């Protein structure tokens, strides 16, 4: 067991190290640099000189490998450097602001995806190969098949402008304030009993979460349906049925058995979910990690992009790991087949 955990941790470290190398050097070979962009069309009479001085101040004139080791050293101390564009704001502060927003949005999207996926999957599995099955799976694929920015803008036009049910964009109405506890606006509003703000946040998150959620629910339907089918014909289900158990109870048992695989898939889809936030947060002006990333890339704000990417990847790796563990706990077969890993 200890061996296994040690091994996993070592693996994870290698992956994170690889991520830092790739993102650092990819950013440095991208055309354009932050200082040029920042000084842009300035009206300094000696703009070249101004720029050189500023580059020296930022340490951008150092050799690349030196900059990399400095970056690595900072990360090890939990420091992601300072934003070049945002007047030297520590990147860790920016992430502390953005990450909880993205997490909350992703959870809401996950919730929406499951709310759609579970009934559709049950229907498809119970009525296998009928028009319900075909139609259900096709329905679940609609969201996956639309470019998310387009879906987002359409939702805004239909549900916020022409029929104003939801707010257009942002995190909450601009007259509201929420005390920071976790940084997740809805959670914090609930924790402090600020119902008005909680309601506002929920309304603001609905359209982006819907866009994000429909974008992944097709996968969930696929997995859940197949797991249900697998269980459907097993002996114990037939036995339940013979004993005269009600259909909903039997479905409940089937669902219970299908959960492990679903949990794994949810874990494995976290990457796709976060990928989706990049575009959606920009459309809905929702300042999470994806928003930071795009702003950072556009301004070539290296420390911000590095920080966001390293953290996002750690998040993906961690969720995959958790998915593995959950799968192992819920599904005895994995313990048997991968036995020595988690068992001994």
């Amino acid at each position, binding site marked *: 067991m200890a061996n296994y955990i040690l091994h996993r941790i070592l693996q994870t470290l290698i992956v994170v190290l690889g991520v830092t190398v790739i993102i650092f050097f990819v950013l440095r070979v*991208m055309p354009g640099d932050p200082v040029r962009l920042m000084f842009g069309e300035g009206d300094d009479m000696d703009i070249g000189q101004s720029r050189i001085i500023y580059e020296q101040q930022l340490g951008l004139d150092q050799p690349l490998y030196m900059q990399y080791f400095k970056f690595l050293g900072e990360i090890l101390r939990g420091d992601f450097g300072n934003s070049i564009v945002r007047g030297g704001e520590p990147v860790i502060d920016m992430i502390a602001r953005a990450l909880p927003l993205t997490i909350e949005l992703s959870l809401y999207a996950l919730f929406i995806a499951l709310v759609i996926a579970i009934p559709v999957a049950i229907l498809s599995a119970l009525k296998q190969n009928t028009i319900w099955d075909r139609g259900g799976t096709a329905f679940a694929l609609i969201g996956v098949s*639309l470019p998310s920015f387009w879906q987002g803008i359409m939702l805004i036009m239909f549900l916020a402008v022409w029929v104003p049910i939801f707010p257009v964009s942002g995190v909450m109405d601009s007259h509201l304030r929420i005390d920071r506890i976790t940084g997740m606006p809805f959670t914090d509003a609930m924790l402090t009993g600020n119902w008005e703000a909680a309601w506002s946040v929920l309304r603001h998150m609905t359209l982006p979460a819907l866009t994000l959620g429909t974008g992944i629910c097709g996968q969930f339907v696929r997995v859940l349906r197949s797991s249900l089918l697998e269980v459907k014909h097993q002996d114990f289900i037939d036995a339940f049925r013979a004993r005269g158990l009600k259909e909903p109870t039997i479905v409940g048992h089937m669902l219970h058995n299908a959960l492990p695989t679903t949990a794994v898939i949810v874990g494995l889809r976290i990457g796709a979910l976060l990928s989706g936030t990049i575009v959606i947060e920009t459309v809905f002006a929702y300042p999470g990690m994806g928003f930071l990333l795009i702003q950072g890339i556009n301004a070539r704000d290296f420390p911000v992009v590095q920080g966001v990417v390293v953290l996002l990847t750690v998040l*993906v790796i961690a969720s995959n790991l958790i998915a593995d563990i959950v799968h192992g706990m819920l599904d005895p077969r994995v313990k048997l087949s991968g036995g020595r890993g988690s068992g001994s």
Partner: protein
Amino acid sequence: MNGFLWRRSTPLPNIIVVFAITIMIAFAVIGLLAPWIAPHPPNAQTLMMRLRPPGTEGYLLGTDQLGRDVLSRLIHGARISLAIGVIVMLLTAMLGVAIGLISGYFGGVVDAVIMRIVDIWLAFPFLVLAIALVAVLGQGVDKLVIALVLSGWPGFARPVRGEVLQLREREYTLSARALGVSPFGVMFKHLLPNIMPTILVLSAIDLGYNILALASLSFLGLGMGAETATWGGMLASGRNYVATAWWLAALPGIAIFLVVMSSNLIGDWIRDRYDPRSPFRVAKNQAIAEARARAAASAKPAL
């Protein structure tokens, strides 16, 4: 051709799948014939005739913000978007499958190294990698293809390796090896046919994904360059006219939707056809194979 024996029954393609296949074939034909059937050159501008609605004399589906014929651009867009989608799909599949085969077959150090690289790759949200690569490589069809292939291959490599890990211990593989068939012979003659269904499923879904990725990159300003008519590019620039010229965003949106939907449905159908019991075999096998590999690795005393 052992894998084909897994097939339990041969359900006739259902109505929706027939529809999906028809759409794909139709768009492919339209794309192939684009230069001959498009009523206008895709870049011919008539500034005086900008933003005309569908049904305008001579412009069946209206004109865009530069007075170009939307129908002609959609037709040429089919050619370019599908061509890129298919080329990226083929290259990604070839690269990913080759790496997956090698990794799974040889195992050991090779496998460990390749899988760590795959892990690193998969840790990046796909779009992050694509954005970074496009930004580094620059604009242009060739560079976009390279960027998408480079960011997409682990999606094939990992499931393929998972399958190979299982198949490698099967009797026919073992006997082929015992008979002295070269590693590459075993891989291509014995393993590859058996994982074909998996590859087909992944490919079908990848095609749709590539077209969506192209659209997302266009939205982020990292698309193909201005003049190439692509659906994603049309959609990205049409989004500013949702309220005034709905056809600019709606029509390419529908085209993308139909193709991506079809490719997903076809992928699902192939999966169902070859293994109706467990359509998500790919992911499961992967999970199980990984658990095994991990167990094997952790059993080594070196750590």
